[in-house]
């Protein structure tokens, strides 16, 4: 399962970055990794729910949740364990893309002519984005014992959290600065802000809050199902 996920991620990003003419770096004529970071959220939207869907849904389905809950571990230990396991798996999928960085670095004219600051920022953004999606996926997985439903719910919630606020903020009902505030609730705003290379504490705190919020929901959802 894990190898499939990592493999698929690399194949898809590889295709977008080097093969498909619309997005290929070779056709783009600028040395950068913008393609990777702009399609990253799109791929994560499907890939991360596929990884997280079984986390709790399968435990409920197979009854192994009874095994976990009757061992001397706290709910937070269970949730954090699953969170870090899933997050690590996603990060392992991102890791090989550093080769792209090296390739583009070598291909630049002159060599090394690329915005390393923005790329570092983008990797940080991608890491936190993955963390947020994993937390959302875990929560979705506690809501059902059907993995497919968990998968679809996670996609829906990730979509809402990442893009929907951005789209909604353009509605004419939000006048003045309200549209700005609505936009900032969504992940996209902060992801783009970090990707520009400006890693500021507000965005980091935002991401950590999203992760914490969904982990909290996960824990309380587990508790509710016990009662």
């Amino acid at each position, binding site marked *: 399962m894990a190898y499939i996920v990592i493999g698929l991620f690399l194949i898809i990003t590889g295709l977008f970055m080097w093969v498909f003419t619309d997005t290929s770096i070779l056709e783009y004529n600028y040395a950068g990794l913008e393609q990777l970071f702009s399609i990253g959220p799109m791929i994560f939207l499907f890939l991360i729910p596929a990884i997280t869907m079984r986390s709790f849904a399968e435990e409920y389905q197979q*009854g192994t949740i*009874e095994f976990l*809950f*009757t061992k001397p571990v706290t709910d937070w230990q269970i949730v954090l364990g699953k969170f870090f396991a899933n997050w690590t798996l996603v990060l392992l999928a991102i890791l090989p893309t550093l080769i792209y960085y090296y390739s583009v670095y070598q291909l630049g004219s002159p060599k090394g002519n690329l915005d390393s600051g923005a790329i570092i920022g983008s990797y940080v953004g991608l890491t936190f984005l993955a963390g947020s999606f994993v937390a959302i996926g875990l929560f979705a997985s506690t809501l059902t014992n059907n993995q497919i439903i968990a998968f679809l719910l996670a996609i829906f919630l990730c979509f809402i959290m990442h893009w929907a606020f951005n789209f909604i903020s353009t509605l004419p009902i939000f006048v003045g600065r309200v549209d700005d505030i609505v936009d900032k609730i969504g992940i996209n705003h902060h992801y783009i802000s970090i990707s520009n290379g400006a890693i500021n504490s507000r965005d980091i705190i935002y991401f950590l809050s999203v992760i914490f919020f969904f982990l909290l929901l996960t824990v309380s959802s587990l508790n509710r199902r016990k009662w």
Partner: protein
Amino acid sequence: MSILVKDLTKIYGSQKAIDTLDFKVNKGEIVGFLGPNGAGKTTTMKILTCFMPPTTGTAEVCGYDVLKNSKDVRNVIGYLPEHNPLYKEMYVKEYLSFVADILSIPNARVQIKDMIEQVGLGVEQHKKISSLSKGYRQRVGLAQALLNNPEVLILDEPTSGLDPNQLVEIRQLIKNFGKEKTVIFSSHIMQEVQALCDRVIILNRGKIIANDPIEKLQQRVKGNRVLHLVFEREVNPAVFKGIDGVDKVTSVNPVSLELVMDSESDIRPAIFKKVVDSGLVLLEMKQDEASVENIFQELTYDA
């Protein structure tokens, strides 16, 4: 006191799964939970293992409250749930070391090796759990429950679905463990309860209807004792009606009778004398001891 349950009630929706249960289990006892399906055996076990909270009432395991000191309770118990849930994609050893990790067991490798030996998983220890037969999976489940050397072992139908040989082996394991530790297990198999338990708790519709050592239970349903007689020739049932202690005489077929006895005293000598006096030839005389099965049926049968 290993287990202390007071006024324990669990309500699902509008249905009372268990209703004001009260019982105690002493250290070192093996107690059998009996009852028809839906009697509340599993619910009681799930509360004792902190899987779900009771609606009202309290339950203590080794002095720890299941709600207030849930983690302490989970530390001293070993639990084999009904249907034995396992991570089937794991290998036996991988799974057991995962369990050891969760339980933070020191010296895990040695412990796991011992445990594999103890439950008889030796030949299968390198396989994936999904490729094990039901009997071996049950051993993995037991190994998992025993790994932290628990004070109290709680087993929900540990022998269901096993073949007769596996049954005997698993029972032996439970019996060995029960020599030092407290064991509660539920079962549908009456002989098993008779063979393993010091005491039986019979549940029906969420209530305890019997909580006695086996010998006492047998006395409780003394009316159930039946004497079977087989004669050489046709016999008149009326011959035996006058004898003290005989409650009812029914003729099964012309040559055999069934006598239901209402007293605890042994009436066989009197019967034999009567047979001789009447000039009959007796071929067979057999007395049924009330088995747990009879007791179970008698106590849980709702007319």
